[in-house]
């Protein structure tokens, strides 16, 4: 018998600190599988955000730098410019990337910074206990929108891939989901493509992964996947928003 599925090498043997059923773990694994398959762990540096995944420096086996809230793309820029022969990725949540770090995100894309951004969108601030995120949906109830997000008062959710797709420097902007086996496999392909584009020096690549937060959504793991399908995917359609094309499939 052969092992057909096991923990990737690029993940350290440390239990995740995420809540039961939180799909951060799946996304971590996909990044690690990508690193394994491309054989790049030894020359990859990851940048951890502030948010639920702040401690992902404990999970990834490559070198890691923890960035101030929202500044991961700027930190990654400094790293990539300093050691361009290395692969540099950021792993960021929606508050980190699309609220406090919007400028850093947009301008890294504007510069065509040759880095890969893994953007985990679960429409809520998880670590601080479930406040409205820039990507929280209209009418979504959160700790800070207790009557539902009123878009006329709190603004509209931001569609990051669509926005970044308008920028010259963006090589790949793709939205995926991890709500079922097929979508997880597609997400993996997208993440691998994003890393490959960096290896091929194509510029800024971002994969937005729709993800769950069972704890702060107040649902169980399975219900959360259903909520994602019913509510997030219609507002954040999956697909490729920009792809400069490449040798990789």
């Amino acid at each position, binding site marked *: 018998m052969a092992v057909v599925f096991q923990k990737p090498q690029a993940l350290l043997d440390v239990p995740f600190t995420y809540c039961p059923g939180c799909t951060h773990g799946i996304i971590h694994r996909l990044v690690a599988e990508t690193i394994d398959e491309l054989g790049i762990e030894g020359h990859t540096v990851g940048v951890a955000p502030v948010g639920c995944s702040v401690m992902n420096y404990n999970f990834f086996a490559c070198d890691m730098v923890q960035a101030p809230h929202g500044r991961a793309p700027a930190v990654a820029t400094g790293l990539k410019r300093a050691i361009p022969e290395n692969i540099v990725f950021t792993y960021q949540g929606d508050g980190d990337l699309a609220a406090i770090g919007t400028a850093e995100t947009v301008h890294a894309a504007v510069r065509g910074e040759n880095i890969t951004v893994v953007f985990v969108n679960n429409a809520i601030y998880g670590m601080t206990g479930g406040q409205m995120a820039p990507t929280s949906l209209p009418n979504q109830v959160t700790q800070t929108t207790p009557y539902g997000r009123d878009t006329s008062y709190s603004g509209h959710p931001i569609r990051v891939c669509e926005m970044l797709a308008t920028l010259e420097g963006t090589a790949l902007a793709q939205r995926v989901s991890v709500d079922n086996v097929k979508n997880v496999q597609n997400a993996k392909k997208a993440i691998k493509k994003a890393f490959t584009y960096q290896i091929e020096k194509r510029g800024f690549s971002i994969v937005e992964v729709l993800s769950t937060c069972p704890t702060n959504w107040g649902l169980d*793991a399975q219900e959360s996947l259903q909520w994602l399908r019913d509510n997030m995917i219609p507002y954040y359609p999956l697909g490729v928003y920009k792809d400069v094309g490449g040798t990789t499939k």
Partner: protein
Amino acid sequence: MAKAIIDETKCKGCGLCVAACPRKILVLSPDKINSKGYRPAQVVDQSKCTGCASCAIMCPDVAITVER
């Protein structure tokens, strides 16, 4: 003959593997509680496993190894 091996110490009992398995051979343990305080997933009928790895693909805690 395929095999899904669940590392009960890593399992958080979220049940995503249970729902993902097309052969419906996984359950959350009715009686066991692991060291983290969760009811770990278990394979009830290993002989029916096809080794498709659907469970492992959906497991957020990388608790499942699949052999085929």
